[in-house]
């Protein structure tokens, strides 16, 4: 279990307990946290689970995969801390992770 903090674009915070092995995307979608569409169900194939990782957590969350980078290439408002949340696996080491949602998913 880890607590993941999801921050909507308007600042609304959602603190969720997320099971180890789930993705950060699943932690939001399965708990009804809005702002992540996840049309492809976690295959890094749609880029509608785009989030910004809090800079303090960049090292812990690791690097983008190749396919993820390719998809992020076409998302809107991509920043250096942009990730596809379906590609970040939750582990106890991510307890307290803060991610922010973009204004919209495209």
């Amino acid at each position: 279990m880890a607590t993941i903090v999801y921050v909507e674009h308007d600042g609304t915070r959602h603190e969720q307990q997320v099971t180890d092995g789930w993705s950060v995307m699943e932690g939001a979608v399965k708990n009804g946290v809005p702002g992540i569409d996840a049309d492809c169900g976690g295959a890094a194939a749609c880029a509608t689970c785009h989030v910004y990782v809090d800079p303090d957590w960049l090292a812990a969350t690791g690097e983008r995969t190749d396919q993820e980078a390719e998809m992020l290439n076409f998302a809107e408002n991509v920043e250096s801390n942009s990730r596809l949340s379906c590609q970040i696996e939750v582990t106890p080491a991510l307890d307290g992770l803060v991610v922010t949602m973009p204004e919209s998913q495209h």
Partner: protein
Amino acid sequence: MSTAATAAFAAANPARDAAYATPLDKLDPSRPELFAADEMWWNFQRLRAEAPVHYTAESAYGPFWSVTKYNDIMAVDIDHQTFSSEPGIMMVPPLAPGETPQLEGLAMFIAMDPPKHDVQRKAVSPAVSPTNLQILGPLIRERAAAILDGLPIGEEFDWVDKVSMELTAMTLATLFGMPQEDRRKLTYWSDVVTAEPGHGVVETREQKMGIFRDYHAYFTQLWNERVNAEPTGDLISMLAHDPATRDMSPMEYFGNVMLLTVGGNDTTRNTMTGSVYALSKNPDQYAKLMADPSLLPSMVSETIRWQTPLSHMKRRATRDVEFRGQQIKKDDTVVMWYVSGNRDDEVIERPNDYIIDRARPRQHISFGFGVHRCVGNRLAELQLQIVWEEIMKRFPEINVVAEPKRVRSNFVKGYESMRVVIPRRY
């Protein structure tokens, strides 16, 4: 499945019988007449169960592989290194000996692989991004309202012509920055692009080429106007000024205009007609929507799944590859049947039913996946959402009075016409 549907399945059904009586290696799911008759389903049902990656040796489109299950389609769609979109993404009859391609050098980014694809897609994408759609939304609403207010009450009319075509053409004309009075040219050109000569829209290839020349001339003029003026924010202006696209060859530019014309026209138009048709066939779902308008976004996604406005996308294998136990050879044609993936019960529960409050309505394969995933998906959804918001303000019901006439195509899955009556206004 409902009892009525089960009974219908059990009843005599020549289309189903034909699909199951054909030897598997002779099965050809691409025959356009099956799509016109809405009878293609049985081939796909059989293929998903018996040969999910299947080879048709002979067809009007040459030999091809069919991929029919949701997850397999996604796997092909994602792997653009192995499954290339070049030279084209639509099944076309092979050229006769000595025949030249219809338009030499025509290039659109839907039929390009990375990295070239990426550059052009990025130039077009801002025009249909959620941010830009906030500007387009009120315009679409205004036009939708005007169209709906002009509809006859208590009198039969063609929904395709009077609503679906009008609204999608208006939206596209706005996106291109064209004068509104030219909007129906777009509808016509869009139909001509996907038409097979000899089946209605155009009679001969020469005639098709002649129409292409007018279409080309029109957009060349639009480009020339934009390139010499300050940026105006419309799509043609963006293409003419963006460093990534302003040096495109004329045929590349025209290819992308065609892509946006077809992409933005038929698909959305047919979903709009499909939504009225599906809701009229499923009155319980219509009642659900009326009782809870917050289901609208979910109804829109379900309609896009159920309709599957583009039945397939085509790929070419770039190397010999084993895929799900089948040996696909370099340069083989591989067809992803989205129309089948959206009926795959391993991924979608009760896939043949139209259910507007599914748990995950956005889980469908109509927009494709991977680097070519539909760039206009939000614009399509927005138009559907707005037109229904405006319909629900005005009309308690829209009655479909006859089975719609379907398009004869294994690519564009849609309607030529659909007769409806609106009995009254609120």
